């Protein structure tokens, strides 16, 4: 009786496998410690608070850019969004769910300025364990999330600027460029 054990496995690289959903859970502590290190890393390389915010936003943008393709393939079955309201709803629900496991609380349109929209979140997960000392002024580490949103919007063809503010919890102010608003109006008229 002879038993042969094959020691050679067929080599499949990760590129041969289909895009799996993956486990959607990451330990909160693990994430919080990593984010804390990220903030400290940025803080060691800047001299002022606005620079720190810019650096965090840049890091967020690098994350956001990679999210666009993945989310549209998985959640929206390859279909692009072309209207402002739809892309914002995509950000509020799908993007937030993929990042944080829950949806953002509110999406509002500014009364006075038609280029500005607000996404409001009472308790952002990124800020859960962070107490900002008084000498850092109005630093909000949610600028990291604002960077993610900005990269997603820019990548989808809606150039915008996103900033984070301490208002009703945390508010992300999304300011679209005029070209985007004009294009959206044209779409509606048609």
């Amino acid at each position: 009786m002879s038993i042969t054990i094959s020691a050679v496995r067929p080599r499949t690289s990760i590129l041969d496998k289909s895009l799996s959903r993956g486990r959607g859970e990451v330990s909160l502590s693990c994430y919080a410690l990593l984010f804390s290190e990220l903030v400290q890393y940025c803080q060691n390389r800047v001299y002022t608070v606005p620079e720190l915010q810019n650096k965090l936003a840049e890091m967020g943008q690098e994350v956001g850019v990679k999210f666009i393709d993945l989310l549209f393939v998985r959640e929206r079955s390859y279909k692009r969004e072309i209207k402002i309201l739809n892309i914002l709803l995509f950000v509020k629900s799908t993007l937030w769910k993929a990042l944080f496991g829950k949806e953002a609380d509110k999406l509002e349109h500014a009364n006075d300025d038609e280029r500005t929209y607000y996404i409001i979140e009472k308790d952002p997960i990124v800020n859960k364990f962070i107490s900002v000392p008084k000498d850092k002024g109005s630093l909000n580490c949610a600028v990291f999330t604002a960077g993610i949103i900005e990269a997603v919007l820019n990548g989808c063809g809606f150039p915008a600027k996103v900033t984070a503010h301490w208002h009703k919890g945390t508010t992300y102010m999304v300011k679209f460029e005029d070209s985007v608003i004009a294009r959206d109006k044209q779409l509606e008229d048609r």
Partner: protein
Amino acid sequence: MVIYGVYIVSKSGGLIFNYECNVPKIETEKTFGYPLDLKLNYENKKIVVEFGQRDGVMVGHVLTAVNGIPATGRQLDDGRDVFDIINERENYPLSLKFARLRMTTNEKIFLASMFYPLFAIASQLSPEPRCSGIEVLEADTFKLQCFQTLTGVKFMVVAEPTQAGLDILLRRIYELYSDFALKNPFYSLEMPIRCELFDSNLQNLLEHVEKTGISNV
């Protein structure tokens, strides 16, 4: 169900956090006849009872008023020196008020750093091998329980002597520390803890324990 204070001592022995609440105010006012049988001493800008404790006036209490007039250090509010009044026979009978003052932050730091070497000595003096150090210190009026973490940080809670379940409370405080102090990017290790979220969550925890008891935590 009364907790008097929470103290956190870092690995190097310095006090990094202290929180006091429900401290009972101890004050006694007594009338004395000449000659005064207490020995008073002027140190650290305060008049302190050094010897001769009786009727509730203990060693370490500070003189706060003479005949109802409050005193700061050696001087009464109306400008007279306290020792002059005490040494004159015709001022008697004299009514003196003594109180145990709250500790200043410096004193707390000093005492906490004294606890650290005591803890180390205790673990070496113990007849059992591989002893961990002081866990519980019980006195007539309070009970101090200490929890040392794997990293050498000591959490201490001072409560009334009959309080039970303090070790569960200490573990919850340890969880709060690891959440709101260690995950805060603006907190450096071994430094005093100045995180609002840690303070507010700790207060909530202590209030919850006082209202509903330790077993619900």
